[in-house]
């Protein structure tokens, strides 16, 4: 029964994505404007309120990784001068563009009418859209989200963002779409967003139970997909999350675990918290390494790059622009290292994890720079030893299966030994 229910949400998501990409392909002939933006700090409700369709290049890149296409795209980008040292998402995207711009659904991705650069916690975003502007020769608007260097959103930083929204972002969207700003339409979108966010949080927090009915990392990157990309603030998004929540609650009631590449994981030997993005090129293989050992991830930080809803944030239709500023500011990559550590420690305690793992990806300095410090601090504060593995987002050259498998096996043995020794 649970498998059939899970299939329902997966099927829904598949249909939503296919429909979105089909609509994108027809956007030029249907005169629907297209706005590119990034996942962290995406203003998708605002974009949608102008009748525009969002494109999220990171999503395209990770999908290219999962479909084993990113290696060729990266090679194409490197052939035209992009360094092997830089973000593989960028190179996958540039390579896809130069290879005909056929997206993950097999449909053509239209050129942007506007690049909405929401500068939220990732320096590379700035260069990425400068590069895309060169390729597409299209307008771009920059939305500067101040970094939370001191761990808080200062009131004047919020005001600065509001001013940019009013004076830069909205006029740019008006120009690109030919439509006037409609605050009522935005409020409606934000209401739908908040409803979907409630459902997502219920799903995320279900992992506090034993057995956990979800995998908070490998499974949850699918769960957050619609909300972190094109479907926040849409009726389809709400429907998806309502369905997903029902499925998870049914699994919870039946005492069942999540479905993994190795089947349903009911016998959960290890509960882990994970920091860092997954390796998309070897996603199933990576997940299987956990499932084979009976390890379930109960919480992760990567699934908060598009919003930290489980700490209480909801889009607020009563403060439409203010809530967008709050949202952008609170995305995981916009938080300083001490805040990230606090989050990990809290997850470990609240979700009663007996281990935590950092998957450090070569591509992303926003995540990776400082992760060894995070490892040390989390170990110190929780008394739980962490594991550290290295791979990449979508560059298949940087995934060493044997090495990662060995490390994980040793790590699980160590947790087991600590239990036997009475330390756990």
């Amino acid at each position: 029964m649970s498998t059939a229910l899970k299939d329902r949400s997966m099927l829904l998501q598949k249909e939503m994505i296919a429909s979105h990409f089909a609509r994108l392909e027809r956007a030029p002939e249907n005169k629907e404007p297209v706005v590119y933006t990034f996942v962290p700090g995406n203003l998708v409700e605002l974009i949608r309120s102008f009748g525009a369709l969002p494109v999220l290049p990171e999503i395209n890149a990770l999908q290219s990784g999962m479909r084993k296409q990113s290696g060729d795209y990266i090679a194409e980008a490197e052939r035209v001068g992009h360094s092997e040292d830089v973000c593989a998402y960028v190179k996958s995207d540039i390579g896809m563009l130069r290879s005909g711009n056929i997206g993950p659904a097999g449909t053509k991705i239209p050129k942007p009418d506007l690049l909405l650069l929401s500068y939220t916690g990732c320096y590379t975003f700035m260069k990425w859209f400068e590069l895309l502007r060169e390729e597409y020769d299209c307008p771009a608007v920059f939305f500067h989200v101040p970094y939370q260097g001191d761990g808080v959103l200062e009131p004047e930083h919020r005001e600065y963002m509001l001013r940019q929204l009013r004076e830069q972002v909205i006029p740019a969207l008006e120009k690109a779409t030919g439509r006037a700003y409609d605050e009522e339409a935005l409020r409606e979108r934000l209401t739908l967003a908040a409803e979907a966010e409630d459902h997502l949080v219920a799903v995320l927090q279900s992992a506090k139970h034993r057995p956990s009915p979800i995998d908070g990392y490998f499974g949850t990157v699918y769960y957050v997909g619609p909300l972190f990309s094109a479907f926040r603030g849409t009726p389809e998004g709400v429907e998806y999350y309502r369905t997903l929540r029902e499925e998870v609650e049914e699994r919870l009631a039946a005492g069942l675990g999540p479905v993994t590449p190795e089947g349903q994981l009911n016998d959960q030997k290890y509960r882990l918290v994970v920091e860092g993005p997954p390796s998309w090129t070897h996603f199933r293989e990576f997940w299987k390494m956990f499932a084979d050992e009976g390890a379930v991830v109960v919480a992760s930080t990567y699934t908060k790059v598009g919003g930290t809803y489980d700490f209480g944030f909801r889009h607020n239709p009563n403060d439409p622009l203010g809530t967008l500023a709050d949202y952008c500011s609170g995305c995981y990559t916009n938080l300083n290292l001490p805040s990230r550590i606090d989050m990990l420690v809290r997850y470990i305690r609240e979700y009663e994890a007996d281990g935590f793992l950092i998957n450090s990806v070569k591509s992303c300095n926003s995540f990776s720079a400082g992760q060894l410090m995070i490892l040390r601090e989390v170990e110190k504060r929780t008394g739980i030893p962490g594991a550290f593995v290295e791979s990449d987002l979508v560059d298949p050259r940087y995934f060493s299966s044997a090495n990662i498998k060995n490390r994980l096996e040793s790590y699980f043995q160590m947790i087991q030994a600590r239990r036997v020794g009475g330390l756990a």
Partner: protein
Amino acid sequence: MSKRAEIVEWARDLYEDLDFTSVRRWLDVHPGRKACGYLPVYAPREVIHAAGMLPVGIHGGGDRLEIIRGDAFYQSYICHLPRSVIELAQSGRLSMLSAVLFPSTCDVIRNLSGIWKLLYPDVYVRYIDVPQVPDPEAAADFWVGELRRLLGDLSAISGHHPSDDEIRSSIALYNDVRGVIRQLYALRQQRPWDVPTEELYLLMRAGEVIPPEEFIVRARAYLGAVEAEPKRPRDNSRVVVTGAFCEQPPLGLIKSIERAGCYVVDDDFLLGNRFVTGVVGLEGDPLRSLAESFLHNEQRTSVMYEGDASGKRQLMRRRVKDAGADGIIFAAPSFCDPALLDQPMLRAGAEQAGIPCIAFKYAENSGQFQQFREQAGTFSDSIKLWGGGTAA
């Protein structure tokens, strides 16, 4: 020893001193005063100075520091600068700093601010988030607010709360610093044989650890010594070196480029000392003047958003033309996001204009220079044989 040699040796001693003895000495002779470090690229030194503190540039350990502790903080695919900065700190060499500023250069330096907060809770740490937006009013208001907060925080540490006139004095002083740097760069551009980049670089590095007043005196003395001791020109090619604005190249690399037959006539080494290209006004609210000079700035760099859609394509053409250069050497640190992500755009613009280019990567601790010398030498020869890009 000639006057020029004397100044260069003084600068070299400061460059090689990884214990920051000059900073410690300054603190000894100024009891109660404090020092504030900053990382690349841009930090508002005027504000540090106005608060009564000594601004100290932290540019890593170069090829003179063995990394023992720093590597434990960073994976192999992260640039070298932060690990040598950590090494300097963990070995106690930065213990004299009461505050450290981390500019918004890239995610590595940004996240290093968080590491610093955790490692050194007693040191004031601030991430310097410069305004990136094209709207000058919103950007100015934001940046004035940031500067005011920084000044307030540093003043609380130093115990010196400057008046507006004192802030203006600091601004005027740094106008003079940038003025003399502009003179040095202009002279090198005109007569690169008289101002070897090795010497200019050492002088700039010295300026990162000494009081600005002293730097101005030394820099002017160097300018005088150059006029007094002219050198003979050689048949070298004229090149722009770009991409080295954050992690600094080892001195040996700069020397290798020059010895391979290239006159460096423009570069972005230590760019923060001339990041603001204009003269900051001394009227009205001094912090607003400083903010507006940052916003109405002609400096174009990888660490700032380029609002002009054609800006990246035009940038290297303009720099080559302004410098009367023949070609470009893209010299970027390994794993440097700002330099390496920019490079395809900059290089495409240059090559479309017919400007010869070469590219290589380095680390601050690179120890072998033969390959750089061969590349630069071949590049210089090819320019002489086939022509450069000055006419572009």
